[in-house]
């Protein structure tokens, strides 16, 4: 397993370099000008000077190389400095956002907590609901519970968050006035009261996201349980005189979790990726919102860096899913 992991990590390096190149070329080839938002009264020579100042005067391969160096060497050095108070990265140019001339990673570090809180909580809530629902729906297939579950998941699956988001705002924020409709990022959680406030403002976005994720996961869990409930080994377990709980929650569940755990692991990068639409609806200024404003402003370093971080996470969690698969299923050996 260890050899496999190391080999996969080594293979990931060329993959990621290639992904970085593709992202870079795509952004490069896409039309757009970072100076597009500058007022027309600014003369074009000045705009040209500003472009050169952003580093756009240099040829493409030089800029790509610089970005690679900044991402893989200078930024990690900065992290190291921040952690241990050293000064290795002093005077070295970091990846700078074109919007506000500040390092990209500082903006990301500011946005990550909101996204992790909202989207991460939604993911955890969804897992906690979806797994028991999936198990019970499969065990009592075609029961009223299962039928109702199927209906709700179909709705959750097919209604997009820009609709369900507005709908819950209308119901719970406007009509019932139970929860605020806007997520206040400046809220500091330093007392129980503030914590209660934080929970209340998270409630609606978490609800919208969790509905969507629960729908997918519970269908998956149900299908996986159904696959296993009719297996011969279940009959064997019953023939041994085991309790129904043991049969279902030990014998069947362990087998059913194998594909589901993989799906859960593969979904983790999307937490970091944020939920662009939901964040927009509830004004959560997380990663998703950062990305969308960067795209609108033609802030290529920001878009490039964010997209690449998602790519790294996806490659990483693919590896984690494979390793988990090997750990859960004894029939799979990678060596």
């Amino acid at each position, binding site marked *: 397993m260890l050899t496999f992991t190391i080999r996969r990590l080594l293979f990931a390096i060329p993959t990621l370099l290639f992904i970085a190149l593709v992202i870079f070329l795509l952004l490069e080839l896409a039309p757009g000008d970072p100076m597009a938002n500058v007022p027309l009264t600014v003369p074009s020579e000045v705009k040209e000077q500003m472009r050169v100042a952003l580093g756009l005067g240099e040829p493409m391969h030089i800029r790509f190389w610089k970005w690679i160096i900044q991402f893989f060497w200078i930024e990690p050095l900065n992290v190291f400095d921040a952690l241990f108070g050293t000064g290795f990265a002093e005077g070295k140019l970091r990846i700078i956002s074109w919007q506000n001339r500040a390092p990209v990673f500082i903006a990301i570090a500011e946005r990550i907590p909101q996204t992790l809180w909202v989207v991460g909580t939604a993911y955890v809530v969804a897992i906690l609901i979806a797994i028991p629902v999936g198990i019970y729906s499969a065990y009592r297939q075609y029961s009223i519970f299962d039928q109702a579950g199927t209906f709700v998941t179909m709705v959750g699956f097919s209604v997009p968050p820009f609709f369900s988001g507005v709908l819950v705002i209308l119901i719970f924020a406007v009509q019932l006035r139970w929860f605020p409709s806007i997520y206040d990022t400046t809220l500091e959680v330093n007392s129980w009261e503030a914590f209660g406030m934080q929970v209340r403002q998270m409630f609606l976005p978490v609800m919208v996201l969790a509905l969507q994720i629960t729908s997918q996961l519970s269908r998956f869990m149900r299908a996986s349980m159904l696959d296993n409930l009719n297996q011969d080994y279940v009959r064997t377990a019953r023939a041994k005189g085991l309790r129904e709980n043991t049969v279902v929650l030990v*014998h069947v569940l362990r087998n059913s979790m194998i594909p589901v755990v993989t799906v859960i692991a593969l979904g983790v990068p999307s937490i970091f990726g944020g939920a662009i639409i939901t964040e927009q609806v509830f004004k959560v200024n997380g990663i998703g919102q950062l990305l969308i404003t960067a795209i609108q402003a033609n802030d290529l370093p920001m878009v490039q860096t964010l997209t690449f971080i998602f790519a790294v996470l996806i490659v990483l969690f693919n590896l984690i899913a494979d390793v988990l698969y090997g750990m859960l299923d004894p029939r799979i050996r990678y060596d």
Partner: protein
Amino acid sequence: MPAGDARPVLEVRDLRTVFQTRGGEVHAVNSVSFDVKPGELLGVVGESGSGKSVTMMSLVGLLPMPPAEVRGGEVLLDGEDLLKVSPARLRDVRGGEVGFIFQDPMTSLNPVFTVGFQIIEPIRRHMGLNKRQARERAVELLELVGIPGARGRLSDYPHQFSGGMRQRVMIAIALACDPKVLIADEPTTALDVTIQAQILEIVEDLRARLGMAIVWITHDLGVVAGIADRVMVMYGGQVVEHAPVHPLFNDPRHPYTRALLRTIPTVTGARADKLQVIEGQPPMLGAAPSACPFRDRCPLAFDRCHAENPLREVVAPNHDVACFHPLAHTAKEAVA
């Protein structure tokens, strides 16, 4: 081997099982009665769909209910009616007093748990041993069924065993708690002949040593002839003939039994042009049978067979048959 006048350990009376399906009811088991004595091996033969497995699964509630429903009868295990006991008591019986071996050892073990875990489970459940004692017992059992290096193999997973070895593990699980009755549902069908011979040998040996009653379901008449004390022939969810093994093979009375025995190809004498078959399909029973289920395929069928369902009648000591035809009631010598 079996004590002739011992009390039967398992007695089944008039068992009836029905499946509710979308297309209506299917009467899979119709008034089946039989018994097994300690140390005795009862062979159950019949073609696919004749109700052999369903009968045995009905005994301890292993059928999914619904769609299955046991409509009536008695299943007496040492005098206790298993159809009337609580689910908890039934769980104690399953794996504790009645052991099961299933057809396909490839899929009958849980792939994600070690073999040791799967053997220890029923031991701890029924015998109340602690972990260490249960482990010792598991090692003993694996040695009993002839798995080399038993101790080391406890931590192996089912996929690390061959088919024959897995069936031995299944036997070890079935025997884990010294059951009074062992029900073997086509345990050798999925195995090749050499492995089959080994498994038969193990079962013969264990029966002699442990003295339990065995019900052995099979398609394979050769296997039955080799190991059974008594044979029960099933057709259309009923017992059509029942006799000790020698009379059954030498002097079969029911037309279905005769037809079954004719289907066995012989290795001596002139080679037959074609394999013998029983023409037609077994019946799908939408209702409790009101006529002989074999009538449409029977060469001897006459008016009465279409009007009435024959009951089992004793035709010789320990030998009963459900057929109206006079040939069924006359011994072979008398015919010849």
